[in-house]
């Protein structure tokens, strides 16, 4: 390795500086460990993300009188949190467990059907040749830019005609498969599924569907899992459309928790206990599958 002054003479000061850096920490700053400041800033960002959840727990453990007087009635959550959980579950305005069941059912059914239909379509778009393939794919992508509100009124009229208002199918059926899922699986299968495998299956006499089922579906598993996760989260937090077609007798969790707010006397300890109960399943999911969510966002620039 040349000496630093020699480099400065032959290639200029910048090169010398780069070389000096390289000597103790490698070029580009990419391989070296960042300084403490980076950790402090990122730590602050994570803390800001955790703060509202902590606040939910604190308010959920307080009583309304204390909440009305002090911004932070107590520093730590305590056992009265569980009493408030119980009050949410016993609420008169709605059946809590029915809301939980509805939310779970919608999220599971929609995720499963989205994955199945998206993978089918993705397989066709990515690996099968057929007239109109390109145009149809562009069409699918274009539909992603259409705002959901645009069709809300007629969709509601359709649901009324079908007699589905107040029933879960009004939420489930329009969500069974979406453009994003199709696009996502197409992109993934284009790279992940070699043509040789498909040809081998075809030569062995497999039908198209058999090829899909035994070759494409297993190959699509990582992307399918991510798609299922994002769909599940999106359905779990969905509020606008369910609040149009569902009612207080048959709500999803977000609708139910919102009902807690509509009492004559707004009881924040009750609301926050409900908010936490609604968030808890996704926090658990995040603990187990947060890594996949991160990978999914970074892999595909998703927006759901």
């Amino acid at each position, binding site marked *: 390795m040349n000496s630093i002054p020699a480099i400065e003479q032959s290639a200029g000061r910048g090169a010398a500086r780069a070389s000096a850096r390289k000597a103790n920490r490698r070029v580009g700053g990419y391989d070296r460990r960042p300084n403490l400041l980076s950790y402090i800033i990122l730590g602050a960002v994570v803390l800001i993300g955790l703060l509202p959840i902590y606040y939910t727990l604190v308010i959920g453990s307080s009583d309304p009188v204390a909440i009305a007087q002090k911004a932070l009635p107590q520093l730590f959550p305590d056992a009265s949190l569980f009493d408030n959980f119980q009050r949410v579950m016993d609420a008169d305005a709605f059946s809590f467990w029915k809301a939980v069941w509805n939310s779970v059912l919608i999220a599971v059914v929609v995720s499963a059907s989205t994955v199945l239909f998206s993978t089918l379509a993705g397989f066709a778009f990515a690996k099968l040749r057929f007239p109109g393939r390109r145009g149809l794919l562009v069409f699918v992508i274009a539909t992603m830019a259409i705002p959901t509100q645009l*069709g809300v009124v007629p969709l509601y009229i359709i649901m009324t005609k079908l007699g589905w208002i107040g029933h879960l199918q009004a939420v489930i059926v329009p969500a069974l498969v*979406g453009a994003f899922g199709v696009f996502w699986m197409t992109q993934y299968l284009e790279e992940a599924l070699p043509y040789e495998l498909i040809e081998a299956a075809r030569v062995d006499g497999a039908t198209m569907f058999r090829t899909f089922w035994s070759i494409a579906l297993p190959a699509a598993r990582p992307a399918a899992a991510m798609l299922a996760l994002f769909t599940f989260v999106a359905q779990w937090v969905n509020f606008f459309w369910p609040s149009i077609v569902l009612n207080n007798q048959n709500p999803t969790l977000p609708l139910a928790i919102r009902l807690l707010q509509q009492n004559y006397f707004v009881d924040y300890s009750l609301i926050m206990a409900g908010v936490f109960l609604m968030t808890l399943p996704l926090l658990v999911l995040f603990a187990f599958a*947060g890594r996949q969510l991160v990978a999914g966002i970074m892999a595909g620039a998703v927006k759901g």
Partner: protein
Amino acid sequence: MSVQSPVEPESDLAPAPRQPRRVGFSQTLSRWDVKVSPYLYISPFFILFFITGLFPILYTGYVSVHKWQLLQGQGDFVGFDNYVDVFKQKDFWLSLRNTLSIFVLSSVPQVIAAILIAAFLDQNLRAKTFWRMGVLLPYVVAPVAVGLIFGRVFADQSGLVNAWLGAIGIDPVRWHVDPLASHIAIASMVNFRWTGYNALIFLAAMQAVPRELYEAAIIDGAGRVRSFFSVTIPQIRATVVFVVITATIGGLQIFDEPRVFDSSGAGGASRQWLTTTLYLYNTGWSGQYNLGRAAAIAWILFFIILAIGMVNFAATQRIATSGGREMSRKAKRAAKRNAKRYSA
């Protein structure tokens, strides 16, 4: 596949005659399988889209030119009366102002913060996955939950933010009264949920920047800040455009947070934080029960989103024109190469 014959040893000396009819039939079947299957596989999306997407959109136009009440159903043809009515309503213009204000207050700081967070994440951190998951955590908190929590954090009396402001000697802000204050509160809910998510998108883009560019920048004497502005930002330009466009489509439809910002859900006593989608909801399903007018609002909102989306697209295209364009051309060429290889 093999043809079974009762007499064993004979078969390979004198091969049994083929059965042309059966083979022909299965070949026809197989040809049909190849031809029809692709359409069959993409059909669920298209069928569902035509019924729950395209048809309602066109039908929205039909409903919007009729008198159409929630309970009575379809009424007379009224031409553009619903549109005129909407434009005459003070609440509509208020909702437009509120939506735009909340949108600007949420998208601009959000994109800037997300890029900065991404720049900090784009280092050789210890426990990378932990930090990435950490910034993403708010994403799993439902907007309704965020709205309810922040409704309390930004409470006018004994709210957390006002307590903090009081601690540094600032008078309490009336978050649920003052229009701009309520917009800031609602925008901060949106920012809370989406900043980390967008940071990860930017992080992915930053990691795709060729490291040699940074080396070259350093050799040219650029420091960290300089190479961030001269290398990183131009290189992730396409991603910035993408995030801004999706933020526009999402931000202009904001509903959940303003809906739960107070218990009435109507958008404030003097409609300070009534957004256009909330106005659409209130027009159709609570209060007026006027579906014809709601449909007109839907169309108007669509054109507003389209217009602002295009303005944003043009604006972000201009940001940092150098470098980025070349890269995207390169990427396009690579994509084309791949496509050719696969279709061959």
